[in-house]
């Protein structure tokens, strides 16, 4: 339908992974290529290693490169507070004490005066420099010169959030906050390098972006902050309340984020980003007076504790239109600029906002759903409020292509070779957009007479499948009909994987597949998973009742003696390893390579040796209502949720397959309006974000 984002890294398409029966590259070969062969590994040097970015990346890369024996040299000025030690507790939480100690034991700390490199550094054979020093162009350039003078062959990347590579003279690898865990890196380089491929092979998410000021992420995030600041200036609405509205309608709370990151540094970076952008693109980005004041003072955006907000604010219809103009207007205009400059693959551009800046939906998805005309109208309304912004950086014509596959398939792609299709999903949680795009992908494959399909994560942006996007449940919290509709609609899509293809294979390539995504995948004729992938249905812990037929579809594929395994699984909410679920949930679990090969065999008609488990279309009446092996709980809420799910299981299994979709949907939709659900995770999130 469109190009795979994996192709932007020079790693081929998702389809080719299955066709070739293996991943395109391995970390071993890339480590050898970049750092030298085992026994003679050179070092990764990180400068500014005690800063927020430097320390985070020392941990992230250190933990991934330690098993390969790549030493990490952490370099900083003397007297800088130790940022690395602060990371230790997180490292222990993530990897356990033993592994954390190994990671820390592989870090070599040096201090230097900014001009003369430590004498001992050469002994570590530096091969790669990741620079994370302050955002001052001349200092950065001098820094690179020092390294190149001493180590002429060293590769250099800067983590700069703004300067283009053309100004710095080095590659860019701009990471996203929080740096120790966020896997996204915006990469600027002429062609995909071994280093970017290595990030991918290490399980990180490099995304190629254009060599333009502030790339993509900071245009969205700083741009949104700037828009919020202007809205405050125009309306006096306090920042905390602007945040609440932005959070409700878009997802991020930019002002809280600045305070959480550290207002002094974050305010400067946002101001600096917008200031530099405004030099190139005009008033669309010009920092407002209040942002400049916050940059100068370094003060928080939210009031001090003793002045916690007292007067609430609300927006009437007219004011809401003004909010849209002030907030969405500039955001849409910035999007037009980035598309015009071809800053990134549209799917990546869309998902950078979601994965790095808390957007509930990517800005491109918002644009698409709104439609080009409405988007242009909102930008026009914004230009009435800030006429100078209209003079530059506005490319309304980019929205003419909104019906192209690049726009329509932001989250779901499909490829085929005339016989086998591969549907790849790059969003970690299932929402209405994914549902719509999945239907379009299925339609496209069917129109191409494809009868066999593999559905999978995209091996790039989505490293896991965490289930339904519960923000899409919010309308159902006060209206059961909305929940019932959602459940029926998503279930109908899932059923197409069973009914529209001769063979369908659900392939789980990531760390986990949970909830709604697992419900989707089990509708495939075969479920194949990497053996250590975690499979789970945590709905009971939220609590919600599974809405995509998880309460009866898997049971219809089981013999009676396996019911208890699944019932324990769904009622406990605990995950299992894929390899422990073979026979009652997964059909096959093996190494990544073997799983890829198995999926291909199943889809292409190869000799796979697996027996297809048929779906029982009749009423099932022998589901046990006493579940053995389920841990008792004192938690009344959990007990009640288990009972509700069990009721749904009994009733939806008792129905025929044709009837069950409605039965399950009714249980699921009705439950979302209950007090129990409202008190739970979904209800709390609804109250926090939607009750503005």
């Amino acid at each position, binding site marked *: 339908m469109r190009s795979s984002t994996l192709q932007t890294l020079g790693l081929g398409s998702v389809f080719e992974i299955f066709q070739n029966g293996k991943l395109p590259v391995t970390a071993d070969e890339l480590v050898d290529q970049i750092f030298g062969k085992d026994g003679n590994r050179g070092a990764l040097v990180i400068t500014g290693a005690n800063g927020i970015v430097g320390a985070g990346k020392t941990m992230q890369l250190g933990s991934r490169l330690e098993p390969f024996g790549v030493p990490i040299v952490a370099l900083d000025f003397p007297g800088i507070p130790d940022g690395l030690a602060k990371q230790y507790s997180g490292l222990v939480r993530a990897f356990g004490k033993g592994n954390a100690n190994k990671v820390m034991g592989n870090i070599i700390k040096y201090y230097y005066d900014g001009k003369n490199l430590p004498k001992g550094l050469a002994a570590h054979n530096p091969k790669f420099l990741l620079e994370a020093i302050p955002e001052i162009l001349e200092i950065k350039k001098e820094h690179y010169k020092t390294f190149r003078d001493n180590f002429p062959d060293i590769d250099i990347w800067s983590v700069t959030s703004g300067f283009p590579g053309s100004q710095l003279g080095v590659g860019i690898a701009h990471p996203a906050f929080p740096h120790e865990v966020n896997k996204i890196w915006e990469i600027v380089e002429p062609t995909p390098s071994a280093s970017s491929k290595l990030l991918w092979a290490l399980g990180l998410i490099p995304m190629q972006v254009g060599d333009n000021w502030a790339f993509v992420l900071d245009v969205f995030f700083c741009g949104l902050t700037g828009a919020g600041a202007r809205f405050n*200036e125009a309306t006096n609405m306090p920042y905390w309340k602007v945040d609440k509205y932005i959070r409700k309608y878009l997802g991020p709370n930019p002002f809280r984020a600045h305070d959480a990151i550290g207002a002094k540094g974050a305010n400067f970076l946002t101001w600096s980003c917008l200031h530099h952008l405004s030099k190139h693109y005009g008033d669309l980005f010009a920092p407002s007076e209040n942002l400049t004041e916050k940059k100068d003072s370094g003060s928080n955006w939210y009031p001090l504790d003793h002045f916690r907000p007292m*007067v609430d*604010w609300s927006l009437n219809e007219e004011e809401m239109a003004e909010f849209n103009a002030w907030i969405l207007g500039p955001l849409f205009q910035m999007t037009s600029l980035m598309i015009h400059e071809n800053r990134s693959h549209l799917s990546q551009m869309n998902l950078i906002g979601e994965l790095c800046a808390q957007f509930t939906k990517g800005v491109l998805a918002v644009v698409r759903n709104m439609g080009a005309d409405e988007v242009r109208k909102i930008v026009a309304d914004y230009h009435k409020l800030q006429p100078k912004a209209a003079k530059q950086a506005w490319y309304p014509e980019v929205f003419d292509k909104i019906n192209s596959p690049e726009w329509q398939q932001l989250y779901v792609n499909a490829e085929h070779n005339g016989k086998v299709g591969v549907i790849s999903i790059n969003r970690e949680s299932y929402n209405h957009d994914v549902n719509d795009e999945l239907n379009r992908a299925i339609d496209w494959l069917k129109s191409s007479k494809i009868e066999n399909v593999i559905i999978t994560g995209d091996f790039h942006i989505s490293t896991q499948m965490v289930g339904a996007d519960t923000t899409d449940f919010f309308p159902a919290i006060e209206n059961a009909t909305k929940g019932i509709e959602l459940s029926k609609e998503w279930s109908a899509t899932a059923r197409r994987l069973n009914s529209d293809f001769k063979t369908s294979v659900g392939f789980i390539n990531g760390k986990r597949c949970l909830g709604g995504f697992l419900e989707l995948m089990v509708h495939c004729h075969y479920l194949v998973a990497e053996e250590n992938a975690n499979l789970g249905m945590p709905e009971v812990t939220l609590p919600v009742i599974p809405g995509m037929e998880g309460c009866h579809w898997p049971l219809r594929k089981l013999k009676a003696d396996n019911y208890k395994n699944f019932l324990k699984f769904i009622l406990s909410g605990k995950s299992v390893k894929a390899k422990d679920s073979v026979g009652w949930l997964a059909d096959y679990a093996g190494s990544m390579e073997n799983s890829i090969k198995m999926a291909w065999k199943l889809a292409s008609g190869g000799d796979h040796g697996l027996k297809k488990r048929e779906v029982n279309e009749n009423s099932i009446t022998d589901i046990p209502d006493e579940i053995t092996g389920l841990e008792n709980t004192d938690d009344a809420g959990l007990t009640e949720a288990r009972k509700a799910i069990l009721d749904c299981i009994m009733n939806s299994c008792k129905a025929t397959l044709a009837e069950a979709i409605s039965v399950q949907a009714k249980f699921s939709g009705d439950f979302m309006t209950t007090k129990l659900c409202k008190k739970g995770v979904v209800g709390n999130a609804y109250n926090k974000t939607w009750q503005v």
Partner: protein
Amino acid sequence: MKVVESMFPNARIPYGTWGSSYFPAWQASALAEVNIAQFAGEAMANILGKRKVSRKELDYLVVGSTIPWHWKFWNGPVVASCMGQRIPGFQMEQACATGLSAVIVAGSEVNSKSYDVAGVLTFDRTSDSPVGVFPERRAYRRTEVISDVWDNFGFDPSTGSAMLETAGKTARKYKIDRAEVDELTALRYKQYFDAKKAGFQDKYLFSFDILNTQGRLLGKISEDVGVREISLKTLKEQRELDSCITSGTQTHAADGMATLLVASVEKAKEISLKPEINIEFISKVDIRTGPGLMPEAPGLAVQKLLDRTGLTMNDMKVVKNHNPFAVNDAIFGKTMNYDWAKMNNTGCSLVWGHPQAPTLTRTIIEALEEAVDLGGGYVLVFGCAAGDVGTAGIFRVS
């Protein structure tokens, strides 16, 4: 319209850049539980936002409040911070004269071209009055404890009398008849409720949702809580506390805020909701009358004001009085030979309450709105204040 010279030719009150909270009776609303200065600052930002005026327009803030609040030491600047704008400010107070004087000070600052836009923000919380502990070597107890609101109402240290006694004493001096006061009071309530039903108050009163420290709703301030319609019969039946004074013919303590802007001529046109309306400062005086005769002070102040400007009561399109006691209006009518039925047409503090500093600010706003409705003219605003003070000011709406 007779034309007289403006006291501040370079200053204007931009139409509509004003607003007030409702004035809930004391102890009767969420305002009894908050730092009123923070509320006032946040509420002013909200009001200006609804009026499409950015807080950025303000250069200076004149703050008026008469009852101590937490962190009062910081006064104007901290209240401005609560509004979201780091500007300088100045605190001023003289009991119920505060509102008018604050507006005049802002006018003076703008007229002298110190600032383009000066905000006036007046507020008070009479509920749960703070208590001050004062070393007092001349008192037999050596240390005096004063509940700021209640104890001061009950004792004027200059005369040794209570506020209420001044009303009775002045009523006797002018031989005011109780029946007249009851009738006057009944009219005042009718005026208030007629204006309310006509939607007049919607032009300048704003509702506020008050949050607790967890960010949840503490209460809504969406009416003058405690104000109920009252009949002449009920008023007549009430027990007299002093000559002509009953609980029905005096005001009640309340909490609230009121704000307006003063701007240069050019800026006023820019930020006004109706730039074609011109609101000018004409003149203002304060006087102090004899001991314990506070209710006669407003009339004396108005007479002095008219003498100085050459205007007469016939020149006034709108006449509006801060009248904590209904006898104030009766005395004013008698001393100025003016029909009290022609004044306070849209409500007055006798009815909607008495939070001190913002009282005259709300009175001014109401008077200006009424004048605009009537097509312009001179607006006379006056009232009494603790210490037997009378204050009066004239504005011109054209």
